[in-house]
């Protein structure tokens, strides 16, 4: 089976800055729950930007299943991301002027060929909200939600398109310990029925027990320049 994510010889630097990433190889198998450990400033966000095709590496290739995103035109990359990747940020995931349901359904706007889904998007949104126990606040403005609820809305939104890959960038860092456990349990429950690949990035090593694979970014990256050095 083709791997979900395959990076080879990827090098990246921001304009007029020293190279920040140099990853000879990274392979994440399809259906894998992958924990990437990285301290802040280690280039996590940059790596995720490259995986999602928002940032273009100077060298190397990034393959998502059968597609080389580094060779796609930017318009196609955006569409590919919208269709196949779900993304959860650290916090403040939601568009402040849309309500919960509108936030959950927003990715349908940017996906291709999901008309069947668009038709019963409300049903699917309700199903996801139910599974994440936020169904009572679908019509709430997002500022009325707690941080934990907001993160669950973000998960529902990331999954609405039935993506093949779910990327989560420190989604639990704003939650306290109990909520963290609860959140991850819910996340895996929702994902359990699908063969979705999860790339979870965090600096919190205590969470690695939830995942099948765990890799440190510092080991992957030849240009590991942590803040302290």
């Amino acid at each position, binding site marked *: 089976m083709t791997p979900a994510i395959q990076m080879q010889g990827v090098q990246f630097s921001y*304009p007029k800055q020293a190279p920040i990433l140099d990853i000879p190889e990274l392979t994440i198998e399809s259906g894998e729950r992958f924990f990437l450990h990285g301290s802040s400033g280690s280039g996590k*966000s*940059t790596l*995720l*930007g490259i995986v*999602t095709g*928002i*940032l273009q590496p100077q060298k190397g290739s990034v393959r998502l299943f059968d597609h080389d995103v580094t060779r796609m035109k*930017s*318009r196609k990359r*955006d*569409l590919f*991301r*919208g*269709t196949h*990747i779900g*993304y959860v*940020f650290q916090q*403040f*995931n*939601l*568009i*402040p*002027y*849309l309500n919960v349901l*509108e936030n959950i*359904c*927003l*990715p*349908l*706007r*940017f*996906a291709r060929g999901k008309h069947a889904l668009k038709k019963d998007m409300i049903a699917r949104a309700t199903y996801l909200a139910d599974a994440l126990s936020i169904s009572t606040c679908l019509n709430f403005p997002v500022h009325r939600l707690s941080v934990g609820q907001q993160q669950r809305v973000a998960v529902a*939104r990331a999954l609405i398109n039935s993506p093949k890959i779910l990327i989560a*960038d420190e989604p639990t860092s704003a939650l306290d310990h109990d909520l963290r456990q609860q959140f991850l349990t819910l996340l895996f429950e929702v994902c359990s029925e699908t063969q979705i690949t999860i790339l979870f990035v965090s600096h919190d090593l205590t969470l690695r027990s939830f995942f099948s694979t765990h890799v440190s970014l510092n080991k992957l990256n030849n240009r590991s320049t942590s803040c302290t050095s």
Partner: protein
Amino acid sequence: MHILMLALKSLKNRKVATSLTLISIALSVGLILGLEKVRKGTRQSFHQTISQTDLIVGARGGPLRLLLYTVFNIGYPTNNIQYETYTQFKNHPLVKWTVPFSLGDSHKGYRVVGTTEDFYRHYRFHGKKNIVFHRGRFPKGVYGAVVGHDVAKQLGYQLGQSIVIAHGLTEGLEKHDEHPFKVVGILEATLTPVDRTVYIPLEGMEAIHVGWGGEQPTKSQIGISQITSFLVRTKKRIHTLSLQRVLNTYEPEPLMAIIPGFTLHRLWQGLRYAEDSLRVIAFCVLLVSFLAMIIALYTTLSERRREMAILRALGASPRTVLFLFVFEAMLLTTGGMILGVLLTYGGLWIGQPILESKFGVFLPLTGLSMYEVKIFVLLFFMGVIAGLIPAWRAYRRTLSDGLSITT
């Protein structure tokens, strides 16, 4: 959800900034539109000061001058024309009716015009409106006067009031006080210079100048020698030009015949610079409000960096982000224009009676003209272009920011 909906919701979320921007655009759109309406209204009132008159005839001189002293009570006639000449054209086969005017005297700053019953019968203004008596009737005798609406109102004249007419157009030295006139008629308001005029019979005018002493003469006893100008209505309007040629080449004395609409138009053209400068000012105000819109959108940019990153992560292209901002500008512009139109028509509806009674300008509640629609199209594109400035900045920023947000 369409990006346009997203833009709408985003604007609604920033109520204060959005409404302030909307108000500023609406006010300047209202200013431009209101200016257009007032301009048109005044032009229409002006052009219809006199209507259904095909030719104005006077002694040879400047056409503008003839128009001004005959219709607008402005300036002085240089020469008179013989009464025989007038009667000859009055009975001309192509002529339907005529109205003679004899100018040169005044009463307390208001002009006194000698004329005949034909004035009350035939004179038309603002299309088909004719002279209506508020009180009284036209004078049967020599020393009867009819005063316009403003004259009666300002001087507080009632029927039977005795008035003295001064020679010359300013309150002069010479007064014809041995021949007082009696007010026998007061006219309804016309919103034209007629309101500021005192009308007396041609015979009365002649009598005070010849110095008809003693007993009051009857109209038939007085022979009229001269008049200043006269209005002509042809039987068929197609004859206007040929009649004009006949009048202009009249051998016994030098005459001049002008087509009032044509000369009015030329006069209005002369006043255009004032119109144009007002328009320039209105457009400057509009530019300022577009600047306010750019600032309003621009200041949100940094607080919306996260929003842009979220949209990007969900699959939005940088172009989508660009469009989001452009659509917001578009909505603000369109909303401002609609509000401005409502404001203008509301203002017109309320201000109409005041403008009409105080300034004699009637502003009809007409629909939008082609010119105004063109202005709106122009404004719309100006708004979009203004929106492109913050939109471009947002576009550049999403490209460099990617998913990293530093807020």
